[in-house]
């Protein structure tokens, strides 16, 4: 199925905040909210995951603190502090997961594979 996926532009690199997150609304995809993190130290540079925190049940993940655990890039939910891997979306402390999307920077634009 992967060949039917496409890269969508969600914002410009100027919208990013280094070592922190922002949120984009995907109008085409049922108003899905995507949290986008800019981590210049990581080879991927940008990461995109669901903005909805399945544990706190609110659209807040983009306001979480980013960092790493055992080298894996993570974001910690601002509500109850569980960490989610930015690579896989898996929660480190509990049985929970969010979707992680492939993201890239192309010609000053932030794009997500959907």
């Amino acid at each position, binding site marked *: 199925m992967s060949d039917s996926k496409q890269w969508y532009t969600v914002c410009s690199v100027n919208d990013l905040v280094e070592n922190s997150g922002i949120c984009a*609304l995907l109008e085409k995809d049922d*108003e899905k*909210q995507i949290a986008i993190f800019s981590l210049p130290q990581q080879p991927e540079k940008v990461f995109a995951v669901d903005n909805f925190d399945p544990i706190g049940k*609110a*659209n807040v993940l983009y306001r979480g*603190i980013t960092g790493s655990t055992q080298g894996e890039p993570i974001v910690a939910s*601002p509500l109850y*502090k569980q960490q989610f891997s930015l690579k896989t979306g898996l929660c480190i402390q509990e049985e929970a997961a969010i979707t992680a999307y492939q993201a890239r920077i192309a010609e000053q634009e932030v794009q997500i594979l959907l």
Partner: protein
Amino acid sequence: MSASNQLNTAQKIVVVGNGMVGHHFVEQVANLRESATAAEITVLSAENRLAYDRVHLSEFFGGKTAQDLALTDEATYSDWQVDFRTNAKVSKIDRVNKLVITETGETFSYDKLVLATGSYPFVPPIPGGDQPHCLVYRTIEDLEAIQRTAESSKVGVVIGGGLLGLEAANALKQLGLQTHVVEFAPQLMAVQVDAGGGRLLKDKIEELGVKVHTSKATKVIEQGEVCRYKLVFSDGTELETDMVLFSAGIRPYDNLGRENGLEVGERGGIVVNSQCQTSDNEIYAIGECALYKNFIYGLVAPGYTMAKVAANQILATDEQASFNGADMSTKLKLMGVDVGSIGDAHGKTEGSLSYTYENQPEGVYKKIVVSADKKLMLGAVLVGDTSEYDSLLQYMLNAIELPEAPEALILPMAGDKPTLGADALPDTATICSCLNVTKGDIIEAIDLGATSVGDIKSCTKASTGCGGCSALLKNVVDKELENRGVEVKKDICEHFAYSRQELFDIVKVEKISSFEQLVDKHGTGSGCEICKPTVGSILASVWNDYILDKAQVPLQDTNDNFLANMQKDGTYSIVPRIPGGEITPEKLIVIGEVAKKYNLYTKITGGQRIDLFGARVDQLPDIWAELINAGLETGHAYGKAVRTVKSCVGSTWCRYGVQDSVGMAIQIEDRYKGIRAPHKIKFAVSGCTRECAEAQSKDFGVIATDKGWNLYVCGNGGMKPRHGDLFATDLDDETLIKYIDRIFAFYIQTGDRLQRTSVWMDNMEGGLAYLQKVVIDDHLGVCDELEAQMANVIGKYQCEWKTTLENPEALKRFRQFVNSDKTDSNIQFVTEREQIRPAREEEKINIIDVTHVSKAVALEEE
């Protein structure tokens, strides 16, 4: 294995009863079986809902809902591919054709049948005991009925003074009833505690306003004269009440066994062997309906063990699994009274000896029962103080040899009490009884790589039940790690091998001004939610720069980052500073108008100011612009910083006041506002010794005297209240401020991450006297530096909201979406008591963004 092959081996398991134990069995099977087709589970529950937590049932009266108490839900069972029916009471078993039949005539066939029908409250056959307001305490429906009846009652009686009876009495008391407990035996809790303990327990419970009547047999319940009913006792006395709760013991639901030819005990209970099989090999019984060696285990932990055994036997995953009885020791808090009962509490063992300690004035009773040779612990009773429970239990469970003078274990000889080190415990020692985790299991987990209490919790599940074992668990884990030469670290997290104080010194000495600098030189990785805010706070304490600087943003907790407190639904609250609690009518009106305009929930806080809730992230700047325009400032309710300086009205108005407490409070608040610290800081100033500002419960408390001010330090309200220590007396204004400057700066430098001043003081070697030496006598020669440090940060104060509003870059962060003006459709409110509150999950509707819709409509109209 092919699909058809799997179908052939599929085993049909039917579980009757979905109480705590029945549900635990389902969970075990779902986890242990190879696949859902390998073992099909059907659950038949007589109740109208799936399993819930009966142990915490009483919390229903404390505001917990049925949903909060639920142990599972339909989605989870569907997920596990468990077929379930509620309102499906089984009335018959056809053992020949291996079928169960429900009351409504539905039939289900089984290969293995598991009876987990639990028990029901025993109602003694007292004439008149079947009237409408005579109730029992077992299910959520029972509690709802109690609640309804209580509404039309003033007096309530619980018949039965056992463990559950006292819990029920507490519930009636909470519901506001004048409460009585009637017990047939001469003492309360006769199963768990001895006569001495029972006597003390009665005193304590009566002190709490519950009347206890022991040695009373109820003969009949008649119509009352003042109340609804009247209990007539066999000794001729009477007691009037509006309602009666029976809590006279439980009886196993063993009718399915009894009526279908399974062996049952003389006094009830379906007989099982150590594999939890009944007299029919294909039928198992677990939990409170099962009788093992002529004993019914009326606690949840043994039931869980049975569930695990039955699951392993039925799936053949562990043929060795067996139930061999269980320890019935218990520790609990009844109406605030600590009670512990271990093993042979009554000293029934041949030749046993006992030691008793009773301290009537303080309400403490302790007894230990030891073997004839004084080498082994056999049992114990603890009332009023259960701090030795863990130790005593381990002595008994593991047959550890007692010290020379066993009485030392319960005597209050401050300091030299022999403690049972984690090392002394054998590997078989149960550390967590709820989840049945032994010291051996913990050692194994450490061998496999676990290196912290957190790791152990997630792989063994220890300490995830009642939580009572957490201190012991930490003890064992730390000791084991130490034994292996692993240093038990004070590191704040995996990224820095330093404590907060060490990091503070590094930042200061090396003049470090950013997280990157610090992690490059002294850490690893890219940080986390623990070290980033800590470093952010240290940088702010040392340099007091604007906290939303580009480099600072990623360090701050969301509250600091958005300069507001995040609420459960992702909206924020807004707390303007109201120094000393003094506010002009004009400012009050502005706050009211802003709240009205943005439709914010408004509440007076416990800190003498006003909190506005429910602002979306994108509304924060507009709201603050209006507040700042009116001369208000941020209240730092979001920061680990100075919160409020509470004041009483003082000498200006109050006829007793001896100093201007409001004036001093405002001076203090203006001086220290905005300063970041290891944790939040609260002050209060009272105008006289009556102490209306409750200053002794604050980090810094100031109380006026006719000569000046008394300074109290390191008080705390909150989770573990602590009275402040009197630091110095009769200070003039200038000395008062000087001392506060020094203590505050010293705390900022040496306090641990998230350590309030109360804990800081309790951990300080030398305590109050040492702090006085440092601050008053300049014992360390650091006072000049401390004052300079304070002067430096005080000079740099800025209202963070004002600065933010002037900074377009920073403002960019205050939006939900970078690419749209829509708002978050998951934020929804409903009205309650004329104001908004967040909608609960079930109240939410899948609406499209309303602001957006109305905008679109407006455009069309144009």
